[in-house]
């Protein structure tokens, strides 16, 4: 059964004059997923988000939202999208509630929606205060409330955790999961906080210099690279040459532990046996999964090496 896609781009290219910012992008975000959109600065993440929101017109290619061809000329399709782009766009001379009222009037939706989203982002008590008196975290939550105002089926969030304290990040994570679980919404979020994406996303797309390096589930992403074996031995100076003689790549960490890439559990057993045969005692042996950060750096560095 084909997977329903909330976002699909087909060979989308965007050029600024002679510079190609996005090249033949084929992004697929399944409906109901939380997709982390990763990439270093200048990768083209914001350009991609602007293309999805119709702020830019692609030089070539097509963009589909919920299977429907979208373009700037068809703004009605954007009623399914709620967006938080970079820092939240708020009017400091207005209260939190009035800021939402501006967007509500533009969207022509029921006034009750304002109170609902204020409650959802836990700003009801502060809703009648001027936004200029809000903390960074409160502004971020109000920005999220603006994005949620039209009951969107797709949330496009650019760095949504910016300025939030750990409790705020935790609340945001819970809120996004609730939206996906209870409202069937799809969340597409770009972030530099790789650990944050790892905790919340079930899909990942990695972009670098306008090219999509990877897209798929987080498990598929991690399967692209084997884990690490972390070893603590009594004589590392002897263990390193022994392992290298038998073809294992091994690095010494500053804390004295040895780190080596291994593919399977049987590799770990083989390493343990080899060290034992050479009279080296193993104090600690643990397999670590590659972090998303390692995968991200690996993917983007690989592209640099290819160049």
């Amino acid at each position: 059964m084909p997977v329903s896609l909330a976002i699909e781009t087909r060979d989308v290219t965007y050029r600024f004059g002679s510079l190609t910012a996005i090249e033949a992008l084929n992004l697929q975000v399944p409906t109901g997923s939380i997709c982390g959109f990763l990439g270093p600065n200048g990768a083209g993440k914001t350009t991609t988000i602007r293309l999805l929101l119709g702020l830019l017109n692609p030089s070539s290619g097509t963009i589909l939202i919920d299977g429907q061809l979208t373009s700037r000329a068809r703004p009605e399709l954007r009623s399914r999208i709620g967006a938080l782009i970079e820092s939240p766009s708020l009017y400091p001379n207005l209260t939190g509630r009035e800021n939402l009222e501006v967007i509500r009037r533009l969207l022509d939706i029921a006034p009750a929606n304002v109170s609902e989203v204020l409650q959802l982002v836990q700003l009801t008590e502060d809703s009648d205060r001027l936004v200029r008196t809000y903390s960074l975290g409160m502004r971020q939550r109000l920005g999220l409330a603006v994005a949620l105002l039209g009951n969107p089926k797709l949330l496009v969030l650019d760095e949504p955790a910016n300025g939030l304290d750990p409790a705020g990040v935790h609340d945001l994570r819970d809120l996004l999961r609730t939206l996906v679980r209870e409202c069937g919404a799809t969340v597409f979020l770009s972030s530099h906080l790789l650990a944050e994406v790892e905790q919340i996303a079930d899909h990942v797309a990695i972009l670098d210099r306008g090219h999509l390096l990877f897209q798929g589930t987080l498990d598929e992403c991690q399967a692209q690279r084997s884990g690490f074996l972390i070893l603590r031995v009594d004589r590392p100076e002897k263990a390193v040459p022994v392992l290298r003689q038998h073809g294992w790549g091994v690095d010494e960490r500053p804390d004295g532990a040895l780190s080596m890439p291994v593919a399977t559990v049987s590799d770990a057993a083989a390493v343990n046996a080899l060290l034992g045969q050479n009279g080296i005692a193993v104090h600690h042996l643990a397999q670590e999964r590659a972090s998303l950060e390692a995968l991200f750096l690996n993917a983007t560095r690989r592209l640099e090496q290819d160049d």
Partner: protein
Amino acid sequence: MTELTRAISAESLKLKRTLALRLAVIAPLFIVLLQLGVYLARGEDVERAATNPVAGFARGIVTLWTLVFLPFWATLAASLCASLDHDGNHWDQLFALPMRRWPVYAAKWIIVFGLVVLSSICLPLFAVAAVEILKQVRVGWRGAALPWRLLLSGVSRSCCACLLLISLQCWLSLRWRSFLVALGVGIAGIMSGIILISAPMRFLSLYPWTASAAAASPHEPLLPLLWGMCGGLAIAVIACWRLAIRDRF
């Protein structure tokens, strides 16, 4: 509700607690207070020179308003209204909404015109109040009547002729994020208008920064009035179209 009425409704809410809204009342008040101060200080001289000192008072207010303050206020109002969305980069948020772009720009233009209309309504009201004060202070003023026709027709014609200037200033303010671009052009236009005040009437009628003063004049007000209104509407349509098709980076 249409997209345009929704956009106007949202735009009017954005004005709450802003300098632009306060200035719509302060600008005409300032002119009237300035003129009142002059007349309080030099009242006897004016009374001796004029047959109807109240008419001179009103004429002075209309001249000051249409030649200097109205063009400057229109320039400032356009820049202040545009800066509401330039500051904090609200455009991306607005244009990500399911609505076309031109109503957003058109609403901005209508709101700026609305502020100028508000000032133009306040000006005669403040002038009446000032005349009442002067009547209490100057015995010679008590029998004089306020030239309503001069005041109302001058102010309303200049307000309509100002549309061309409003459209140009709105275009500049919305196109360039920097406050200085629109303000710089506006001030240069006003200053050159003052310098060229002795130029032929036809030129003053067509020059956007003096068209409102020319329209307020009782001599040949039709050309600047039509030029200002029709030119203003044409420029507004072109500006909305050009701004709407632009990619936003």
